[in-house]
């Protein structure tokens, strides 16, 4: 079998033509180079059209009406569930729960499995590199139950040490290890399968935040073996307002229902209710129907492009950016070398604040992220108030990376001290 190779120029041109938004300019009048994909990606025509098709041809509420539109909507909605199940090679379509996003998926687990299984003596283990979405729900759980949250530290080279992880598993004997598959700031990938196995041997449950993995790489939940895995739609060419919780079926069966309402019951009387079967049990209210259909279109789009090649392409761009930034004096890359990460490069420039960098890059048409990226504990740990992040996706070009590097050099020159003296403003 051939090794996957990055997309060539012709292929990238073809991909870019499917994303109408990439043709626009920024407010400074310069063509857009969208390098803020770890925050949210753009959508191809096929996703936009799938949702438009739903709304203009067959939309109705699902699982309810005995009429043509409801039947068609329900079929498209459930077909979307199947496509997502295939996308992550789930053992059972009933293990796919539609939520409003990765954040709500984690909150669902914390509020159901967490409330049912966690007590004051228990420990939730996580890492210092988590997004707030994988910290705050556990802190809220700790507020309800009194449990402890322990954070695994990161090495000076921004990678994790397996031995340290195992020591934490043995010392704290956590009930749950909730960790990211790839840091949204450092880009660092974690050895998901290995850590899940170490947890399995010790009877520790696992939750994987796959928000930064599912959009970029093949994902096989049966091979990984995690108890829970979450990701959102909008970081993988899909709509906002939809996310996935994948859980092992026996666990999901044992968990109590989450939000109460229509759709999640099999029977309601004046004295109580009986929960519906999976997956309806966790999908109270009218679900995000067109969004599920759009997400399935996104999954099909990514599969057709070959996710092995997508990740190869992003890592190729990441390498150019990473090495280019490291070669600039006064620029510090916050993250491991490119072979340890996917398509994310965070950096800081000595003496220049991240907001000034992002503002100036925008003047060059380049969209990056500046701030703490919803990882305040990580930034505190690294003794940084903020960083700037470029994150690549399947439609980014080598030329855009070159523009980015050139602009960073200009920003650095612009804000480096030049012996300026303060003067009174010239009278106008």
């Amino acid at each position, binding site marked *: 079998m051939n090794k996957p190779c990055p997309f060539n120029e012709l292929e990238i041109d073809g991909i870019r033509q499917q994303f109408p938004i990439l043709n626009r300019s920024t*407010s*400074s*009048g*310069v063509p857009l180079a969208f390098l803020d994909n770890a*925050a949210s990606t753009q959508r191809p025509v096929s996703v936009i059209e799938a949702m438009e098709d739903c709304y203009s041809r067959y939309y109705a509420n699902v699982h309810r009406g005995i009429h043509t539109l409801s039947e068609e909507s329900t079929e498209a909605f459930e077909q979307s569930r199947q496509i997502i199940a295939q996308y992550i090679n789930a053992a059972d379509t009933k293990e796919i729960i539609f939520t409003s*996003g*990765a*954040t709500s998926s984690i909150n669902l687990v914390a509020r159901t499995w967490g409330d049912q299984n966690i007590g004051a003596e228990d420990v939730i283990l996580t890492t210092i590199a988590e*997004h707030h*979405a994988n910290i705050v729900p556990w802190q809220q759980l700790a507020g309800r139950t009194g449990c402890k949250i322990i954070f695994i530290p990161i090495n000076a080279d921004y990678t994790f040490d397996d031995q340290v992880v195992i020591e934490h598993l043995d010392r704290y004997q956590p009930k749950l290890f909730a960790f990211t598959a790839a840091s*949204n700031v450092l880009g660092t990938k974690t050895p998901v399968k290995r850590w899940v196995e170490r947890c399995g041997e010790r009877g520790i449950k696992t939750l994987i935040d796959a928000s930064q993995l599912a959009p970029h790489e093949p994902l096989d939940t049966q091979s990984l073996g995690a108890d829970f895995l979450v990701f*959102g739609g909008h970081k993988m060419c899909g709509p906002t307002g939809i996310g996935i919780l994948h859980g092992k079926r026996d666990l999901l069966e044992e968990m109590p229902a989450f939000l109460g309402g229509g759709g999640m019951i099999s029977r309601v009387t004046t004295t109580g209710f009986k929960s519906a079967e999976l997956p309806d049990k966790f999908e109270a209210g009218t679900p995000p129907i067109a969004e599920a259909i759009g997400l399935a279109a996104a999954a099909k789009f990514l599969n057709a492009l070959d996710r092995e090649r997508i990740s190869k392409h992003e890592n190729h761009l990441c390498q150019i950016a990473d090495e280019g930034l490291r070669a600039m004096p006064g620029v510090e890359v916050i993250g491991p070398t490119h072979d340890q990460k996917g398509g994310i490069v965070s950096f800081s420039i000595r003496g220049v*604040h*991240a*907001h*000034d960098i992002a*503002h*100036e890059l925008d*003047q*060059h048409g380049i969209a990056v*992220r*500046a*701030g*703490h*990226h*919803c990882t305040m504990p990580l*930034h505190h740990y690294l003794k940084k*108030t*903020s960083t700037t992040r470029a994150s690549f996706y399947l439609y980014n070009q080598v030329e855009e990376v070159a523009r980015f590097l050139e602009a960073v050099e200009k920003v650095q020159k*612009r*804000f480096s*001290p*030049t*012996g*300026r*003296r*303060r*003067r009174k*403003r*010239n009278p106008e």
Partner: protein
Amino acid sequence: MSSEQDIYEEHVLDHYEDPYHRGDLERATHAHQADNPLCGDSIHIDLKIGSDEKIIEAWFSGDGCVISQASASMLMETVEGKTLDEIRAFSAEEMLALFGPKLTPNRQKCCLLSWRVLQSAIHAPVDDLPADDDDTPDVHFGGPSLGEES
């Protein structure tokens, strides 16, 4: 390069590199500090207020972007010699005008940080210095927050 007004005009960069009264004021009579939690900018202001309710000296320290630090420098330069009534009457709009270049709502927050700290500092004698900034005037401007991501 840009069709928009450059927010980093020469006057702003001059204040950033050569700020007015950056540092601590020994024997300050009033002081206050606040952060912009969205981006981590922080400003601390020390004041020496005379018995005639006039600001004799104003100093600032802190970390942050060009806008937050240069605007603090401009503010320190402006407020010395002013009475407390004049400070209280000094509005957010006047602060933005003092800074000069037109700012988007997100960057206005950077510019107004020192103004918020000043408004609190005049009510914060150093003897009973409050640690939090709960009593700062809460000014909200529109626009998305730079700090959030889901």
